């Protein structure tokens, strides 16, 4: 985290530069069926983030050595398109993308009923075509919608959202400027029905009390976002 305390991003009344209160999230839109050739797909915009997720499968897992006799494997790839960032992102291998892919896969494997599809593979491609801040949360949330759109059974949807700290104040869902100068970032992957977690990362500096506040903001935001996800899936079904 940058942690440049001299940029004023929230005023004494708790109003942020973009007009939001500390616990408010940015505007979100969700749409399914956006990749016609895929088995399930989702386009999610969140602030000026945009993710497109396609799900293919269940299909035969090959090469054979990745097959598991008793369950399906997920193959999750998170990627940022070259034009998704202010400075062009060079295509190709990238440690950050590899790590985000891995934690996203770990989160989704926790909810997909893998044992229903032994020896098969489900491929989940997450493409960030416009990046603001919080792209891993957008990608994970959109991926769980795309899985539902593909009819893959899950124990619950996953809602991912991050809180952080700006000017020593804990706030929810950092935007780009807040993220650049923010002092902490706590992204979580939440099961909205049970309040349990499948994904957790954090970096920066949070006291134990600040940490608890950030945790609470995420839990509340998850409920709000969950409603939008359910609506989008209903709309998709009715088409």
């Amino acid at each position, binding site marked *: 985290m940058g942690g440049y305390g001299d940029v004023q991003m929230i005023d004494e009344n708790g109003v942020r530069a973009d007009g939001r209160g500390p616990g408010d999230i940015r505007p979100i839109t969700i749409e399914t069926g*956006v*990749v*016609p*050739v*895929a088995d399930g797909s989702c386009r999610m915009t969140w602030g*000026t983030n*945009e993710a*497109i*997720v*396609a799900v*293919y499968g269940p*299909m035969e897992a090959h090469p054979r050595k990745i097959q598991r006799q008793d369950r399906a494997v997920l193959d999750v*790839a998170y*990627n940022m*398109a*070259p*034009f*998704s*960032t*202010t*400075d*062009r992102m060079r*295509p190709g291998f990238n440690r950050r993308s590899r790590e985000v892919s891995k934690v996203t896969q770990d989160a989704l494997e926790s909810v997909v009923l893998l044992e229903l599809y032994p020896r098969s593979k489900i*491929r989940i*491609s*997450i*493409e960030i*075509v*416009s*990046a*603001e801040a919080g792209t891993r949360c957008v990608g994970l949330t959109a991926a769980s919608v795309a899985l539902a759109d593909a009819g893959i059974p899950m124990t619950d949807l996953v809602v991912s959202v991050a809180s952080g700290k700006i000017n020593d104040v804990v706030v929810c869902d950092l935007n780009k400027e807040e993220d650049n100068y923010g002092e902490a970032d706590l992204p979580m992957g939440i099961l909205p029905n049970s309040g349990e977690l499948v994904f957790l990362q954090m970096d920066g500096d949070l006291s134990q009390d600040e940490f608890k506040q950030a945790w609470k903001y995420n839990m509340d935001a998850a409920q709000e976002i969950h409603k939008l996800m359910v609506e989008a899936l209903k709309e998709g079904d009715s088409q």
Partner: protein
Amino acid sequence: MTIPIVPKLLRSHLSDLAERDARIDGRGRWEGRELEVQHSILPRAEGSARVRMGDTIVLAGVKFQIMTPYPDRPNQGGLMCSAEVRPVAGRNWESGPPSPESIELGRVVDRGIRESGCIDVDSLCIIPGEKAWQVILDLFAISDDGNLFDAFALAGITALRNATVPAERFEVGEDYQLSVSKTPMMCSYHRVGGRFVFDATAREELGGDERIHITLGDDNNVHSLQKGLKGIFSAEEFTEIMDNAIERAEELRKIVDEL
């Protein structure tokens, strides 16, 4: 892209259709799919476009970088065009280093745009010998239902025409519109069921043979050609395609001009 087992049934079905001069989705031999072209759709790109041709969807984004001009061309900037087809776009596209197919895609589209001279590289100079703009056009497939070539080319030229040079962000003056003097158009033909058709779908590609890509400029001048895949064609067949491309390119150019 893994080698798909070409279904013999599909091939013979496509031959039967060809005999009746029909196509698998009901189109005429020289008829393109429903087309939708949008621009200014990517917040982080300096120029962008989205093209939908039937169930084929692609994005194009333009970014700028400052480069040092090459010593032998101190007054010129550069244009780089790169195409990516990632697994998101279809069941048969795999991750990993660029496949021969996607390298060919990028190079063929790049050649059509570059050779048309639509970007005046001299106009990209900022300080001779020191600083110039490098224009980077990235083509990105969202959904591949065939003929990514034409979709990429169309999205590419639209995004370039939509691009603003971000001079302010780089602290070298005021932003201005990228100058694009020509509108090259690519038209692609696949041999399906024995004869060539325009704008093939993925199933036609799968059950078809060689393909020919033609890029024409505003004045019908030829800027690039490419024959792809195994196959033999005659001079007469080529002439027929070229004549058709002159018509198709004009139609497409009208759509872009009216955006």
